[in-house]
């Protein structure tokens, strides 16, 4: 994307990271040593280390309907375990464009997208990320051609059914957020069953946003607060940020605020995803299309995230 890149050298002063008790997030201490353009690029010193990481990928077998390994894997070179985000959010954009580039129908793009998602879920499990939220279907996506919408919903249903065994064994808890009233009844039932079956799993929580709109999330929180106020359960003065946080759809998880948001396909916008929760989230925009987003790109995004200095409005030093 367009940006003016003027080299601004900043001093790299390393001091031990001080854990900050805010929503369980850890402050990074190292300053940015590289200007961060809107296009993700990895600093040169990590280049050779990433090459070492990619040769490992060839040796691993990431099978499509794979098993999730029990132990936590060593992180690739260059990533710091203490600075790993607890909650990663992803906007999986670019399936249609990927298919068009290869002369395939859009449905092939979405299926390739599902494979990418499986790979990402496995990586998150192995690297100790606790919550992964994915933007599968936005409320605005209902305007797409009916054929595509029907395909997407049936793909979602098929994937849920086929992955239920694997995810249960892998310790993954699945939650679905969004306005489920517009979904077909069979899908709604399946979602309910999957949520019930996996609700005690604790290795990774996968939150899938289907028919989700950030604005309607806040509106439904407001509606439930208005109901409570009407019945006299709460007073107007009690309405504050943490009350609203409890009413949002992300109240199904212990860490509702993403540390990192990744959007693929180079678009620079949030598109009505998790508005409230993204207040202090680090945004990473990746040029690759979603089906091409793999381990390397994820490591790049994580590296960029770990280099950022999160101050939450305050000042360091």
């Amino acid at each position: 994307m367009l940006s003016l890149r003027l080299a601004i050298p900043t001093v790299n002063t390393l001091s031990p990271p001080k854990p900050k008790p805010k929503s369980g997030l850890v402050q990074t201490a190292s300053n940015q040593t590289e200007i961060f353009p809107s296009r993700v690029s990895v600093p040169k010193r990590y280049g050779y280390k990433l090459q070492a990481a990619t040769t490992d990928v060839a040796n691993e077998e990431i099978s499509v309907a794979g098993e999730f390994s029990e132990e936590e894997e060593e992180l690739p070179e260059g990533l710091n375990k203490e600075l790993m985000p607890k909650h990663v959010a992803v906007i999986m954009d670019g399936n249609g464009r990927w298919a068009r580039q290869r002369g395939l129908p859009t449905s092939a793009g979405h299926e390739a997208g599902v494979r990418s998602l499986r790979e990402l879920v496995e990586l998150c499990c192995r690297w100790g990320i606790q919550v992964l939220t994915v933007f599968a279907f936005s409320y605005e996506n209902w305007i797409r051609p009916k054929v595509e919408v029907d395909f997407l919903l049936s793909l979602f249903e098929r994937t849920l059914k086929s992955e239920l065994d694997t995810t249960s064994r892998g310790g993954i808890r699945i939650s679905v957020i969004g306005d489920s009233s517009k979904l077909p009844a069979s899908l709604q039932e399946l979602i309910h069953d999957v949520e019930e079956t996996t609700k005690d799993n604790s290795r990774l929580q996968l939150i899938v946003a289907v028919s989700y709109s950030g604005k309607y999330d806040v509106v439904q929180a407001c509606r439930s607060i208005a109901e409570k106020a009407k019945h006299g359960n709460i007073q107007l003065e009690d309405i504050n940020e943490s009350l609203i946080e409890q009413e949002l759809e992300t109240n199904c998880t212990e860490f509702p605020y993403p540390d990192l948001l990744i959007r693929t396909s180079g678009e620079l916008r949030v598109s009505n995803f998790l508005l409230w929760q993204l207040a202090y989230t680090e945004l990473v925009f990746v040029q690759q299309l979603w089906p091409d987003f793999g381990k390397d790109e994820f490591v790049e995004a994580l590296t960029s995230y770990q280099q950022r200095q999160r101050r939450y409005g305050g000042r360091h030093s």
Partner: protein
Amino acid sequence: MNNFSKVRSVHQKLSNLFRKGVCKVLQVGPIPTHVAFIMNGNRRYDQKLNLAKGTGHSIGILVMLTMLMHCCDLGIRYVTVYAFSIDNFKRKPEEVERVMDLLKFTFELLSEKNSIANLYSVKFHFAGNLDLLSEPVKNAAKELMANTVNNSKAVFTFCVAYTSTDEMVSAIREACDERRRAMQEPKKTDENYGLTKPVEVVDIEKHMYMAIAPHPDIVVRTAGENRLSNFLLWQTACSQLYSTPTLWPEVNFWHLVLAVLNFQRNHFYLDKQKKLLEMLL
């Protein structure tokens, strides 16, 4: 006038002419209605050039006013800046006081008769929890709003003592309060009003501090960071986010041009999506 100042004045006139030419070219395409700026990097500017503390902020204010003039030249009707967040109160008291004094000075300067507020006919508006400010600053802000209320060419919003979550909490409180008062009023002809009518997006939006402006088309963040920092979370759902590594005091007209060009590239697709959405939902 000696030779140097003659050359400089000719150079300035030529630059102005060139800028106006570029504006005319850009105006052939769609121009954003509302641009928001996160003015980041003032203190890093001080460190970079070894200046006294606070110089970066002062220069930042000047740059802000210059950018306002450039936006007016381009025909952008609404400009919003993130001047001071509620989180910034956590900083050292000397820094907070310095910024507050600077803001008060700016508001007073803009309230004067021949300031750019009246030259460009800009209405000044404040978004945020103004009760968190000290009395002198709050009064200067209120006076500026009152003095410029009749200006109509552009609207400039200062977000002071603002966070988006605070704005949403206050809007939700007012929406709930409105519902409660409607329920208690016996005069309403529709007796079910307030009891069964659920809260909608419009009910919350009309109570937002930012209800005065449409949603931003572009959000520009300087100093290389890629986050929203609790700024206009609700309003930027579909805005273009533009991040530049330049520090705020170094930002100039050309950054704005690039941001607008970027907007123009994506505008037709996004506009079409918006219209389809309105038809459907």
